């Protein structure tokens, strides 16, 4: 496939990328996964501690073990409850990113807790099994089991079971989209929104943006192949892939909760994310799509000070305010 060069990075993001070097790796090969996981206690990530999550006592932080999928081990949920908010509060059910192969349920929670603090949300972040040791459907079924427990036990953790919002970034965005499909098809919990932040949605890895970003930015085409192949093995890219693993494969996107989708124009996931939003609209659904010009993957997290990052973060918060009507 011949492709044009990608859109230029936003100047501030390009500058940040220039100084981050290996802290913002472009690619990931399968044989690097053990090494990357082994970098310090948190792997390559700068993860929030319980103290960070409590935000000076504004949240009570608890790890809970709950039943996993049928016949599978228990799973762990990290639960952060606002201490001051009265009555049952909306629940943000978070699935973390990391390409299905990296990270844990604290990854991405720093930003999530900012929304929770502003809106008084209960945050539940699920610890799911990682590929390639635990290929599909282990990750998504773990996430779904945690969602079921959360919906059934919401009141016990100060949450409102009728106001659950699915949220996640990158692979966590893909998992959140899959949870919305699963909940619809299994007639399970009825989340009121899905927040898909630069989501990883399509195992086929063959949109123009996946080619444009080969070897560039953050999470390039090779890294994407590494993540999907770990999850799906030989099946990746074939007709034999479930929409609950790769939501872009879903033929029917109707009857889903309102979606918030954001993505950078200079990242692998641009085209699959734009297409997902378009297909939701075509199915008569509601979606808010933001394509941030010159953004690389997860730019707002890697360079939170940049003007574009501030705008991207503000847009998410505004959507939550509108969704919740408060």
């Amino acid at each position: 496939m011949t492709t044009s060069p990608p859109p230029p990075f936003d100047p501030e993001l390009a500058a940040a990328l220039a100084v981050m070097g290996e802290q913002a790796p472009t690619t990931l090969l399968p044989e690097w996964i053990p090494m990357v996981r082994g970098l310090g206690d948190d792997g390559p990530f700068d993860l929030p501690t319980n103290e960070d999550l409590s935000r000076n006592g504004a949240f009570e932080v608890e790890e809970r073990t709950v039943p996993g999928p049928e016949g599978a081990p228990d799973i762990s949920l990290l639960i952060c409850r606002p201490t001051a908010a009265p009555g049952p509060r909306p629940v943000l059910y978070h699935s973390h990113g990391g390409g299905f192969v990296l990270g844990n349920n604290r990854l991405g929670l720093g930003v999530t807790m900012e929304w929770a603090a502003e809106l008084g949300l209960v945050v539940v972040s699920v610890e799911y099994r990682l590929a390639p040791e635990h290929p599909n459907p282990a990750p998504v079924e773990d996430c779904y089991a945690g969602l079921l427990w959360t919906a059934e036990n919401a009141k016990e953790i100060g949450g409102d079971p009728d106001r659950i919002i699915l949220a996640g970034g990158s692979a966590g965005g893909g998992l959140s989209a899959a949870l919305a499909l699963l909940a619809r098809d299994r007639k399970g919990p009825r989340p009121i929104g899905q927040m898909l932040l630069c989501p990883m949605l399509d195992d086929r890895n063959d949109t123009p943006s996946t080619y444009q970003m080969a070897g560039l930015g953050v999470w390039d085409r090779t890294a994407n192949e590494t993540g999907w192949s770990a999850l799906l093995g030989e099946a990746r890219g074939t007709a034999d892939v479930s929409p609950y693993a790769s939501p872009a494969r879903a033929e029917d996107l109707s009857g889903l909760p309102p979606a918030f989708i954001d993505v950078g124009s200079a990242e692998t996931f641009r085209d699959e994310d734009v297409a997902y939003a378009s297909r939701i609209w075509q199915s008569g659904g509601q979606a808010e799509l933001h394509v941030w010009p010159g953004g690389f993957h997860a730019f707002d997290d890697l360079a939170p000070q940049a003007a574009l990052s501030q705008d991207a973060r503000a847009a998410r918060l505004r959507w939550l305010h509108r969704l919740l009507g408060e």
Partner: protein
Amino acid sequence: MEELAGRLAALDPDAGAAVQVIAYFDRLVEGRAGLEALVRGAAVLSGCPARLVDKTRQVRVRVEPDGRRRDENGPVRPEWPSVPLTPGGAPAVWLERTGPRTVVDAMVLERTASAARHVLDRTRGRAPVHGPADDPALLETVLDPTAAEAARLHAARGLGLDPDGRARAIALRGGPQMQASLSLASGERALVQPVPGPEFTDESRLGVGPAVPVLELPRSWSAARTALRFTAEGTDQDPGPRIVHADELGTLALLAVVVTPGTEPPPDVRALDQAAAASPWLLPTLYAVITSPSRRTAATALNVHHSTLQDRLAHAESLLGWPVRTPQGHLRLQLALAARLLTRNQL
């Protein structure tokens, strides 16, 4: 992958950090980033609020280390590390912190100022020349009546001027050097501005030449230099206008031809200088009188009572030896004050 480790704020405070500072600003410049991005870079890389103030261009940008712009703030504190936009200029970029200045601070300030100068020149319409045109040799050529027309047109294009358009030359003296200009051995500086162009402000004394076709810029330059000779510091010791437009001089410009370097000051100028030496109030008082619509407004401008002004003028007349309150005496006084500037401002 989301949330990789690595925050800019966590840069190692060692020599490696300085290299990263350079890389950071290089990419901003390459991407033609704006002023806020530059100041944000300074704040993020140094971990303290950073501020850019350019009073003449009415630019004020302040960013905190979390990247948020917050322009509201108190006065600049003298102990903060700072740099000017151009060597020798007034401080324009600050890091809002006290304590010893580090190598990284100095590097951040230098890179911010350098990048901001280019952005200001590019975006604020302040610079009369742009791009490769910051070349004094091009200015010299375009103002040189002996240079070939083709060479002057080529230089005009290099300066970003429309060869079929109009432009004016400006002669400057004193003040910080705010933009690219040609410095002459005689002490004044030259620059060229397209017409119509942005409003030109500067802290220097200015002689502004007439708008002319580009090929006639040497004539505009000559008139600008003459106009500069009619300027003054604008102080009590040297009262007079800091900016003079050649177009507004009229016949008075001819006086500059007669009162030239090496000529003996005219008797009226000598009389003024002698009187001023004895009475410090004399020059500002007379200048106020010739520039005010009435003696009453002159008194107000001088912050003295009307009767005090009358007393002073009577005294001045006795010192000078001619009346200054008659129309003829008023003209003689105006010419004498102008001639006095010409004897003092010889190029």
